[in-house]
């Protein structure tokens, strides 16, 4: 599955995204980085077909992704919040998104159990979301996104609400799941350390209205510590530019 983002831009009252282009091959783990408010989440929502772009186009294997239209390709999304239905067990939450795929109830439950197990939630299938920890809820949300066997998995700062320890555990888990399933992932984060630790392609966005400031292959050719330092310098420059520019620019 090949993802292409071609000159995508978005205006609200002000231009938020000027023009962003990048591509991801099957099995890539793309991390979107950038200063707060530069439109990372918006870009992810455009890629997922949740919101329309003002300019440019997104294609999955050559098929255009258009907001509010059912696209052929399957896209799984993990939001900043878990967005689980509190009145359904973890199994039913995962099973629910399998209903449009036309699976029988027993098959849905079996698939849900399989992906919950993959996400480290074996034994918790019958729990309600309110009875497990925040980290476990986010794992269930990941299991839900994976269960539809998506061509593309989008994750929007999925560990933002977790403490440092759980965050590290979840990063390792996501990387393991990514290796096991070979899914193409686009992952939004504001943590450079996180991006360098888990991403294969790092897309650093500029201050608003955003463009791609730097596209880095994180394939081990550059030393991690140096990469983190470089990216930190870049993000500080962009933060300053954004503050200097003010919201009306």
């Amino acid at each position, binding site marked *: 599955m090949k993802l292409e983002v071609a000159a995508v831009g978005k205006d609200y009252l002000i231009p938020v995204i000027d023009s962003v282009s990048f591509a991801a091959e099957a099995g890539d783990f793309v991390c979107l980085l950038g200063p707060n408010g530069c439109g990372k989440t918006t870009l992810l929502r455009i890629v997922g077909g949740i919101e329309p772009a003002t300019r440019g186009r997104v294609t999955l294997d050559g098929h255009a992704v258009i907001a509010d239209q059912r696209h052929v390709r399957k896209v799984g999304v993990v939001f900043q919040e878990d967005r689980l239905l509190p*009145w*359904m067990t973890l199994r039913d939450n995962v099973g629910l998104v399998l209903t*449009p795929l036309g699976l029988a109830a027993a098959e849905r439950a079996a698939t849900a159990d399989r992906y919950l197990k993959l996400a480290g939630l074996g034994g918790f299938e019958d729990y*309600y979301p309110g009875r497990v920890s925040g980290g476990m809820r986010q794992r269930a949300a990941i299991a839900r996104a994976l269960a*539809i066997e998506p061509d593309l998995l989008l994750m929007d700062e999925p560990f933002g609400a977790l403490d440092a320890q759980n965050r590290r555990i979840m990063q390792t888990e996501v990387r393991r799941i990514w290796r096991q399933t070979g899914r193409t992932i686009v992952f939004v984060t504001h943590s450079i350390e996180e991006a360098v630790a888990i991403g294969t392609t790092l897309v650093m966005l500029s201050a608003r209205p955003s463009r791609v400031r730097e596209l880095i292959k994180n394939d081990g050719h550059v030393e991690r510590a140096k990469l983190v330092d470089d990216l930190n310098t870049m993000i500080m420059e962009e933060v300053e530019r954004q503050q200097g520019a003010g919201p009306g620019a």
Partner: protein
Amino acid sequence: MIVAAWWLLSLRYGAYVLPSPVAVVSGLRDIVTSGEIWKHTAASLARIAVGFGGAVVVALLLGLVAFLSRLARGVVHDVLAVLNSTSVFVWIVISIIWFGLSNWAPIFTTFMITLPVVASNIVEGVASVDRRLLEMGDVYHLSGRRKFTAIVVPSTLPYLVAGMKVGFGLALKVSVVAEIFGVTSGIGYVMNYSREILATQMVFVWALVMIAVMTVTDKLVFDTVSRRLTRWRA
């Protein structure tokens, strides 16, 4: 203590103003043995079932309309505000004019009074459905019907139960008042009749019956239902 005070006061003011606890207990025993208690309670409950039941059905339809259209939600909201501020007496008088001295007068009054209470709860519940959950449903291509049954209905149910609980209490109070006019059965009728024949102790007895009906439905029906509905809460 209360019973003792009641008894002393009843001695002071006489049986017409305040009958003694003994008279009330024996009155209660009389209507239980004669079966009158069931006859009138059943008559009142039957009217409530029709009036209040109708109100719940219409309220559900209004909730559905409010969910489907933002414009309709505004209209429903305004209509409910008007109904909510209309007095019980207005509906009693109007229903007597429209339906005469018949069963339909208390039924209609109950319907008109409980409708806004139940409906505003449902509309509020529908409005409070988490948009982020609906967006999740869109992302995973859930059908409109699936989103309705899996997301909208469970979010709204607690509001419905709360509205029905308040609405039922109101239905009981209102229908009893409406029964004073024109019908020959029901708790309201028999209370008013007891007053006319100067049997004040029976007024107290029926008041106790009303309280009992209210408490029992509250504890047995509504508390059980809301506990079952929220069993997923941590």
